[in-house]
């Protein structure tokens, strides 16, 4: 990164106001953003939801809706973009600045073929005939690593997987060799192994075209891996900007410091995370002073009078009055933020003597594939779950990891159904679910509760939260007085106020809603809590608080957790044991420390290496295993190892060893402390 490189795009004092609906005040989503993008560099914009990062990116392209009023200046090569007539802007969009959107499904028109859409992007800015444009489209698809580009040209968007669509999206963006690529959360909707592929493609695309990349993300890991320079946004402003190493090594704004402390890390053990107290401010009628002051442990009276400007030297700027102090002292996040003390977990030595809470062996579930409108006939089966083994003892957290489509949710619903499984055995607290009477099932429900992923969808919007929390108690026929006494207690336990019981879910923030969900699950004092991606819908700073709460509750209430997540860092942080799923099968299980340091299954290894670390120095030192392609369709049951189509280990094997993978499905040693379903996993 050289300062002498020419400035390609400059944003000066950008302000975006959204006209207030319903007579409310205007929402100022972006409040004076300054950014500079130099030729060929990667600028990461990081921030939580509502920080204005996407709006900033969209306003550069003039893609904001009509209710937005954009002020300030955006210049591309010295040419002012704001206020440019739409026709002129259209010539710049796609030609000089191209965009990669978050949701690759809605970014393509579903009724046109991929090839035609990319060719259209080519022909929109270049005078070429159809065949040349098509040839160019095939080249582009090849560039982004889509196998068999000629055939892919004639595919419809729905025939592509999420990762393939995002690649095609990148192909379309680089079609006219733009100077700037804007990527707005390009990998948020994707699984980690696919994310690693797409980030790799983005890097390739950038290298081939020499474009500068603006990468908007909430994921510090992705930013650390990709960016040269980073801008951290909070409440519609850039609060800190610096080269990536400096930003992560010596942050000068307490918000940046808090963010770094709030992220669970793959390369570190548990212990409390550093939550940033409070919630981001609403962008209507902000009080004077630093918008972060109400959440900042370093804030003084001087912070509340005027908003500090973005100042600093040698490319490292921060909008904080305490920036010099932070730069000089370089404190760790935990030194600045109050960290809740966690009660020490009673870690017994011999887990085989602990009572068993949940035991699942050989679980299978298939869904019929039906065809026909009038008379439905079965044309095949989806093997959603095909050999899952789980084992949870009292006081343990089992992390269940897998990518989308690996059968995690089906497994959960099979367990929660408390009915006889299609194949295999589910034992909850020593009772086989196949042999339970209806009454016994109802009683057992009190021992097993669930917290869902989306805290908005899992709370009835029309019930006050007091009633929501009372629901499982009422279902278990608890007496009225006991319910009335328990609700305030539960609310306090999860860090809410008893007075909140009469409020409705929409009056709470995401983190608070998830706390309500947890309170509801705890109401009947269950022994096993199923947590289905409980923090993946939350911002990092909020997520840290919820994770700390979960750890604290587990220690005080002696709970067991079945924690489902696609986020390996969270699993690493919270779980005692981990179970990895691929295509409906458990491929590896064992104590979390062992699995994360010495993984035995090639899939686990690839998964671990795909997770970006929020540490640029460590990130550069890693070797990444990129898995080719997508998981195969679960409609056919593979003979032999299900992973061999993508397995990097299989590719290195000799013919005889390969044939074993092809013919014999590897079994998981369920008795062992740490087992992997791989023929060659021991080495």
């Amino acid at each position, binding site marked *: 990164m050289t300062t002498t490189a020419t400035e390609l795009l400059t944003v000066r004092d950008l302000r975006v106001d959204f006209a207030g*609906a*319903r*007579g*409310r*005040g205007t929402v100022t989503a972006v409040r004076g953003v300054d950014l500079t993008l130099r030729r060929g560099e990667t600028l990461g914009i990081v921030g939580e939801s509502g920080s204005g990062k996407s709006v900033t990116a969209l306003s550069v392209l003039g893609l904001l809706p009509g209710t937005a009023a954009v002020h300030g200046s955006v210049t591309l090569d010295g040419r002012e973009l704001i206020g440019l007539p739409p026709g002129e802007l259209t010539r710049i969009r796609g030609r000089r600045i191209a965009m990669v959107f978050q949701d690759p499904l809605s970014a393509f028109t579903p009724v046109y073929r991929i090839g035609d859409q990319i060719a259209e992007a080519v022909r929109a800015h270049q005078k070429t005939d159809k065949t040349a444009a098509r040839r160019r489209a095939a080249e582009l698809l090849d560039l982004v690593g889509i196998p068999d580009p000629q055939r892919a040209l004639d595919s419809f968007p729905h025939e592509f997987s999420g990762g393939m669509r995002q690649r095609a999206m990148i192909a379309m963006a680089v079609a006219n060799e733009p100077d700037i690529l804007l990527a707005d959360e390009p990998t948020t909707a994707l699984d980690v192994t696919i994310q690693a592929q797409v980030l790799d493609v983005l890097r390739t695309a950038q290298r081939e075209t020499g474009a500068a990349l603006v990468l908007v993300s909430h994921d510090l890991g992705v930013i650390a891996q990709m960016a040269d320079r980073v801008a951290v946004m909070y409440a519609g402003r850039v609060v800190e900007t610096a080269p990536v190493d400096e930003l992560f090594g010596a942050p000068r704004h307490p918000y940046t410091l808090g963010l770094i402390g709030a992220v669970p890390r793959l390369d570190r053990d548990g212990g409390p995370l550093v939550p940033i107290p409070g919630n981001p401010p609403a962008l209507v009628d902000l009080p004077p002073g630093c918008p972060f002051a109400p959440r900042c442990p370093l804030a003084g009276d001087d912070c509340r009078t005027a908003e500090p400007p973005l100042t600093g030297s040698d490319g490292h700027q921060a909008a904080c009055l305490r920036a010099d102090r932070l730069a000089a002292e370089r404190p760790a996040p935990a030194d600045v933020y109050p960290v809740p003390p966690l009660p020490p977990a009673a870690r017994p030595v011999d887990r085989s003597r602990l009572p068993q809470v949940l035991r699942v062996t050989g679980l299978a579930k298939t869904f019929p594939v039906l065809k026909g409108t009038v008379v439905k006939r079965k044309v095949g089966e989806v093997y959603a779950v095909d050999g899952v083994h789980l084992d949870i003892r009292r006081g343990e957290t089992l992390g269940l990891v897998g990518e989308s489509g690996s059968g995690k949710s089906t497994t959960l619903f099979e367990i*929660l159904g408390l009915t006889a499984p299609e194949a295999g055995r589910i034992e909850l607290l020593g009772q086989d679910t196949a042999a339970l009477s209806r009454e016994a*099932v*109802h009683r057992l*429900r*009190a021992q*097993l*509760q*669930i917290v*869902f*992923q*989306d805290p908005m*969808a*899992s*709370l*009835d*919007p*029309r*019930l*006050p939260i*007091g*009633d929501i929390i*009372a*629901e*499982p108690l*009422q*279902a*278990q026929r608890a007496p009225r007085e006991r319910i009335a006494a328990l609700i305030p207690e539960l609310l306090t336990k999860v860090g809410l106020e008893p007075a909140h*019981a*009469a409020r*409705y879910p*929409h*009056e709470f923030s995401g983190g608070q809603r998830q706390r309500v969900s947890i309170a*509801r699950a705890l109401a*009947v004092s269950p022994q096993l809590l199923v947590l289905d991606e409980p923090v993946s819908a939350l911002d990092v700073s909020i997520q840290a608080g919820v994770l700390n709460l979960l750890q604290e509750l587990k220690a005080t209430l002696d709970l067991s957790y079945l924690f489902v997540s696609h986020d390996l860092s969270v699993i690493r942080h919270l779980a005692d044991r981990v179970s990895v799923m691929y295509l409906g099968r458990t491929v590896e299980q064992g104590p979390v420390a062992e699995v994360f340091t010495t993984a035995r299954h090639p899939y686990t290894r690839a998964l671990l290496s795909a997770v970006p670390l929020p540490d640029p120095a460590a990130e550069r030192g890693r070797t990444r295993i990129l898995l080719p392609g997508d998981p195969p369709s679960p409609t056919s049951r593979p003979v032999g190892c299900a992973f061999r189509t993508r397995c990097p280990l299989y590719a290195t094997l000799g013919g005889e060893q390969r044939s074993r993978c092809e013919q014999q499905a590897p079994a998981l040693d369920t008795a062992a402390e740490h087992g992997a379903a791989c023929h060659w996993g021991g080495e």
Partner: protein
Amino acid sequence: MAGDAPRSRGRLVLARLLASPGVVIGGGIVVLLFLLAFVGPYLTHWKYTDIDYTALRQPPSAQHWFGTAGLGQDVYAQTLRGLQKSLIIGLLVALLSTCLAGLVGACAGYFGGWTDRLLIFFVDLMLVFPSFLIITIVSPRLKNSGWLAFVVLLAAFNWMITARVVRSMTISLKEREFVRAARFMGVRPLRIIWRHILPNCASYLIVDATIAVGAAVMNETMLSYFGFGVQPPDVSLGTLIADGTDSAPTYPWMFYFAAGLLVLFVLAVNLVGDGLRDALDPTAAAGRRPSRRTLRALRRRAAATAAVGSRGTPPALDAEGTA
């Protein structure tokens, strides 16, 4: 089921109901209409059957407050008699058909499978059956069982389309996580329907019920025409309006008093329905985009409540007050 409905939600909804001016005004009008219908007749010595041969088609006067009709009937007495019938018919029919629609629709949607198929088959059957045919067959048997049978019959032909809509809403609600969560908590199906499904369909059901009130009053005239329901010399608002329509330009008092009361009635029910819908939907105040007029009303109300220091006013209202 209704007995163990959550008290706290009930209380919250009640508080929101009473705080809404529409409900208070609408409810007040309905109460006044009932008073008028049942107490009003005692204020005059004319009965609705009486005929005053000295006054045919006379405009309102001190003698006949609302004037007289073609045969010399007192329009005031007739209108109030009609109001008695129509108030009860309108409200009961709307209530009954909405309850039936909600129950059948939600059960069909929630349970699915054979329950769904059977119920929907029945609904479709009811939809294609010519209702007049059934009424002509049934009516001689019911002739003596009074207005209650009449209400049931009116409601029985009025719920099918609503039930179908509720069914499709239920099917999408069933997949929502909060319903799933309730199921995994061991909440019984009927209780899930009562607590989660129906409140989340409430907006539609309430709008539908308020429309049904007016429709029931007018449908009743249609049945009366077929010789069933209200027969002369007995009257209802429906029959009065039907008879008075032709004379409206020449003898307006024979039409406008009955029509005016019906409009007032339906309007009042709509006000109550709107208020109930907003009270059940906690996001109502924040989620909808009110018109300029309601905004002004909100501002006035906010100013008034700000003066007494109201608790729990949504922030939107406070912003209105200070704006």
